[in-house]
């Protein structure tokens, strides 16, 4: 089961952090269709955050069609976001790993790589505004 | 709530009752020991003169001590320690909370001291001849039903003062001062008037008044030939007092007194009066609880 972590200094609203972490877990295949998400009480008992925040995050995920609430049972994953290419044995991932190795063994620092990656991603977004 | 009030006050209650029981036991012993010496009054006098002189003062202090230590902290300590807020934010009405605490802390002590007073009246019988009239202070207040009533009074003063001034120490001080004030006013101003005193006038002669030994003398004076009261000075008398007084116009002397058989009616009257005062104090406390607290 997924465990949430809230970073208060990130400036991102707590419920959005939950949404992002769930999506991330779906993307990485940590959560699969049929899995149950922790109940609000379980999340709260672990993180001491407000249960309304958890419920708000789950509503958002439900609206996106990623999860569904089953009365009295809990909230379950409906749909995976995992792409085969992103899995640890995927082709694209292997290529990116190879690129990363080259970049870091060369003149670039960790932060340079991060900035470069984001810049390229942003350029790409600008060319195709509706794509995600 | 009864258990809670008991748990909070049990130490004071047990100590108070222990003290009262010890005193009662001592009085019972006194009764049997003194009775066994009678009719030899000299022997009783020799053994108990000192004790009988000091004991009334202790018994007079007992109610106010109990009132100070059981009554004053009852609410004041809860205010001081902040637990008043706990007690008053539960599902129980203020009045019930207040009344239960008063009843649990006050009733056992009141019953014990009343028993002490009744036993005391019986126990003091063999030594009464050593004492002045038992209708005068302090003997009147330390036996019968009054000692119980005065204990309730001191307790009510302590509890209400603690509630009003929100401090145990100040509550104790107020208890002491108020109690002594009430004692003096009741004994000197009120008690002689529970009933009209008997009046006896006789031809003046020097020497002690001719009254029953258990009578309580509340007034005496001198009359001239016309039957008017006159004030007489003894200071300038030289030689024969009778002649000196006669020269000042004294023909008769009179006395006002309450006979000894009025002891129990007076006991009940005074107990009732004190309990009336207690009612007033409790009403004040109930008012403060509703209007002024926290």
């Amino acid at each position, binding site marked *: 089961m997924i465990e949430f972590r809230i970073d208060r200094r990130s400036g991102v609203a707590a419920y959005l952090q939950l949404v992002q972490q769930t999506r991330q877990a779906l993307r990485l295949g940590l959560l699969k269709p049929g899995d149950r998400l922790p109940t609000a009480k379980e999340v709260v008992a672990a993180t001491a955050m*407000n249960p309304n925040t958890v419920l708000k995050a789950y509503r958002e995920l439900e609206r996106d069609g990623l999860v569904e609430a089953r009365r009295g049972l809990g909230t379950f994953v409906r749909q995976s976001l995992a792409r085969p290419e992103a899995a640890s044995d995927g082709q694209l991932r292997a290529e990116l790993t190879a690129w990363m190795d080259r970049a870091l063994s060369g003149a670039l620092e960790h932060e340079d790589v991060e900035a470069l990656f984001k810049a390229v991603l942003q350029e790409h977004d600008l060319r195709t505004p509706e794509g995600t | 709530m009864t258990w809670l009030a008991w748990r909070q006050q049990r130490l004071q209650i047990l100590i108070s009752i222990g003290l009262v029981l010890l005193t009662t036991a001592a009085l019972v012993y006194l009764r049997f020991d003194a009775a066994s010496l009678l009719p030899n009054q000299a022997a009783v006098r020799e053994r108990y003169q000192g004790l009988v002189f000091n004991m009334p003062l202790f018994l007079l202090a007992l109610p106010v001590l109990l009132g100070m230590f059981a009554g004053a902290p009852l609410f004041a300590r809860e205010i001081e320690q902040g637990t008043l807020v706990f007690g008053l934010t539960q599902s129980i009405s203020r009045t019930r*909370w207040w009344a239960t605490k008063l009843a649990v802390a006050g009733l056992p002590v009141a019953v014990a001291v009343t028993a002490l007073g009744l036993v005391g009246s019986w126990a003091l019988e063999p030594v009464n001849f050593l004492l002045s009239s038992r209708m005068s202070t302090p003997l009147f207040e330390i036996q019968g039903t009054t000692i119980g009533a005065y204990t309730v009074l001191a307790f009510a003063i302590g509890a209400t003062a603690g509630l009003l001034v929100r401090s145990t120490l100040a509550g104790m001080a107020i208890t002491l001062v108020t109690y002594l004030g009430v004692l003096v006013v009741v004994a000197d101003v009120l008690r002689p008037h529970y009933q009209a005193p008997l009046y006896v006038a006789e031809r003046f002669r020097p020497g002690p008044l001719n009254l029953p030994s258990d009578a309580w003398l509340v007034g005496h004076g001198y009359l001239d030939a016309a039957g008017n009261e006159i004030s007489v000075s003894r200071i300038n008398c030289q030689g024969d007092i009778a002649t000196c007084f006669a020269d000042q116009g004294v023909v008769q002397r009179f006395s006002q007194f309450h006979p000894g058989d009025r002891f129990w009616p007076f006991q009940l009257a005074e107990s009732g009066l004190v309990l009336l005062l207690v009612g007033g104090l409790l009403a004040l406390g109930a008012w403060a609880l509703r209007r002024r607290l926290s």
Partner: protein
Amino acid sequence: MTEGSAALDAAGLGKRYRRGWGLRDCTFQLPPGRVTALIGPNGAGKSTLMRLASGLIRPTSGTIRVLGQKPGRKGTHRKLAFLAQDKPLYRSFTVQEMLRAGAELNPGWDHDYAARLVAEADVPTNARIGTLSGGQRTRVALAMALGRRPALLLLDEPLADLDPLARKEVMQTLMAEVADMGMTVVLSSHVIADLEDVCDHLLLLAGGRVRLAGDIEDLLGEHRLMIGSRDLELPPHTVVEARTTERQATVLVRTTERVDANGWEEHKPTLEELALAHLRSARKEVAA
């Protein structure tokens, strides 16, 4: 929100003490099932408000309704629990005896639940209250409050004397209860950071008056924090507070739209920034 559905409803509420008004002209509603941060500097009226709600004191003016009812003389509303700042408990009692006191004073007392909360906090039941640490004492006091099974729980500075671990544990217990029972909670604090994750509703008091009230997400969305050179013209919006250093100006404006003013950098404020800006501007009003 419809009339009467609020967990706490104040209308023109005021309380005057001998030294002056402790709370004045307060009108607000706290929705049920929410966790409200009651924020304000010392003396802002936070404790006064809680004491009014629990019926310990009576309003001088206006009304307060707890779950639809005015506090009366029959004790505190059965579904309201109040935990005062000094966590009052009978010092000479054992924890066990304290729980029994709770049962004696409350017809709806849930003994198993209160005992479980105490056990979860690792507080020995035969220990005397007077010997407990600050954290244990708070846990017992919280168990005493929750044992009443309240629908509305008022906590006055509950975290003030707790270490970070105890803070987290107390909050976990509380939030689990909110999740489970849909309980409404009001937490007061003058340390805003304590409440940032936990609360979703805000009631900001200063000088005995309500300065800001509402859903925290909404309030944050209605404000923009603008940072720019101090020579720039202020954006044409309601300015809550403007502060300037030698070169820079920081301005909190109230608006639902993007400001998009030239030269200004625009941020979404944090709860702390929002609250502090309102409190500072309240203080300036009073001083002026």
